[in-house]
């Protein structure tokens, strides 16, 4: 690792920490969202980038965390930081419930199972109307805490990136990667692939659960359509793919680049925007399957810790 990198990182961290002091409310919210996307893309990378098991329904953990933490706030009066952590725990619990049967199988089966999961959660939310407000949504008590949530989101984004770093440089991470490389051989070499896949899946669900809660707290209101949209899964996937799945900083890079792109294009041309995302996915898979960082890694023989 180059000497200047940790120093530059520290500088960036300080800069981001001081940012809210002179930024506008709008500026803080934009950065807050960027942190959220970093956390989401990074989480998708943990399961799909490292183990190769593509999750097409990852937004379900975001939505579940949003609802779980909002219910904790509204029904049990919890403070939002604790409630959001609770959201993360519930999301991880859902991952365990779904992963246990579905991760036993080969990739395509798992992928399709996750595709349907989103729909099911929307139905569940509508069904338990008493608790969740059903289609009418759930309102949270008014709170002006954008700056605090900014820091919270930033912390989560940093934490997920740090966790990714620790995993990729450990034997645990290597074993996850063997699942991606050759699952049959991994099993034959004594790796309990189901257990490892479950760990990765749980880890990949926690952060989306937490940021789902944070996002809900920030918006002050949630409803099924707003927290379980397919476009969120698509965006997470594009960001991680574009930046470089399976790398540590790839999802961060992808999130930053595509978030900027999104801010410009989204508001005016929603469908064109989504169409472009679809095209980018196709393009990346065909032309640079390892993403930007992956390509750089190969070309300049960079270490895996990039």
């Amino acid at each position: 690792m180059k000497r200047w990198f940790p120093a530059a990182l520290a500088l960036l961290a300080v800069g981001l920490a001081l940012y809210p002091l002179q930024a506008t409310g709008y500026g803080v919210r934009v950065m807050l969202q960027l942190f959220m996307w970093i956390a989401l893309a990074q989480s998708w990378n943990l399961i799909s980038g490292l183990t190769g098991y593509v999750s097409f329904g990852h937004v379900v953990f975001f939505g579940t965390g949003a609802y779980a933490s909002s219910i904790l706030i509204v029904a049990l009066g919890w403070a939002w930081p604790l409630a959001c952590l609770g959201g993360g725990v519930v999301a991880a619990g859902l991952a365990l419930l779904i992963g246990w049967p579905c991760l036993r199988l080969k990739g395509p089966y798992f992928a399709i199972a996750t595709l349907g999961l989103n729909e099911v959660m929307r139905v569940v939310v509508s069904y338990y109307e008493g608790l969740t407000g059903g289609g009418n949504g759930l309102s949270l008590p008014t709170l002006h805490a954008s700056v605090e949530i900014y820091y919270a989101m930033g912390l989560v984004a940093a934490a997920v990136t740090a966790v990714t770093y620790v995993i990729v440089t450990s034997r645990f991470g290597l074993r996850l990667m063997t699942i991606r490389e050759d699952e049959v051989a991994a099993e034959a070499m004594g790796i309990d692939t189901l257990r490892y896949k479950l760990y990765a899946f749980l880890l990949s669900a926690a952060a989306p659960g937490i940021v789902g809660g944070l996002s809900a707290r920030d918006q002050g209101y949630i409803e099924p359509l707003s927290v379980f949209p397919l476009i969120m899964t698509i965006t997470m996937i594009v960001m991680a793919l574009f930046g470089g799945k399976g790398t540590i900083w790839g999802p961060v890079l992808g999130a930053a680049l595509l978030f900027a792109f999104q801010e410009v294009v989204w508001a005016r041309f929603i469908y064109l925007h989504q169409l472009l995302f679809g095209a980018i996915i196709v393009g990346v898979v065909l032309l640079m399957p390892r993403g930007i960082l992956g390509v750089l890694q190969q070309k300049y023989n960079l270490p895996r810790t990039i």
Partner: protein
Amino acid sequence: MGVLITPSMIGQVVISGLLAGSLYAMVALGLGLIFGVMRVLNVAHGPLLMMGAYTTFWLFQWIGFNPYLSLLVSMPLLFLVGVGLQRFLVRRVVDAPELSSLLLTFGVSIALVNLAQLAFTSDLRAVEYLTGSFVVGPFALSKPRLATCGFAIAITLGAFVFLRSTRLGKAIRAVSQSREVAQVCGIDVQRIHLLTFGLGAALAAAGGSLVAVMVAIQPEMGQVYTFKSFLVIVLGGAGNYPGALLGGLLLGLVEQLASLFLTTQVNEAVAYVLLVLVLLIRPTGLLKGRV
């Protein structure tokens, strides 16, 4: 609950289930062929169905073209689209790790849905052609469902005759069992891949044209069919084409049965729960398939 279940209700459920199931079976056969021959899970299967539905709609809207005759247009049209997708995109990832083809078809499905949004807007469309039901004894047979079932059965049977008896059909089955052996026997595997994807797309389009008469048409209508087609494949066993028939009928029956006891909202969850159950208990499918 206090709902009295009469035999005629059961009968109605069975009939409705079989009617609906025949459509599921046909569409799922398309997905199953692509999966069996190329080991590619076509996530864009639903959007292809949607395109078939829109074809039927616009033909009906512009020139009053009979929706059922439009099958003769939508199927060949989407066959070509399928061949094109295979030739220019999917072909490059057939031998890559499975996640590549998953992501690719996922990207294609997003692109197709949003192209439809841009071209047709998300306004709900409908083809008002056939409504009402025949009443036979205690049973009501919805006319569009009957027609759909009839066509679906005919098309599916046609597909099976093709697979069993024609040279190309046998070649498809051969590649499906073992690509290497098929190649050694002189089969042009590339051509078979093109043909199969086209066929799969055509079957999806047929599904779209048939449901266009029954449901609201909008760009996202196909998503649920991707999932259900996959469920049918899992039920029947991957690579087991006759299994897709049984799987489709079974899904139709289970859904109708569930609608007796559960609210319509929860119906969506039924298919999902069924999938998870089958994956847990018999991942190779109810009949023998290759995982």
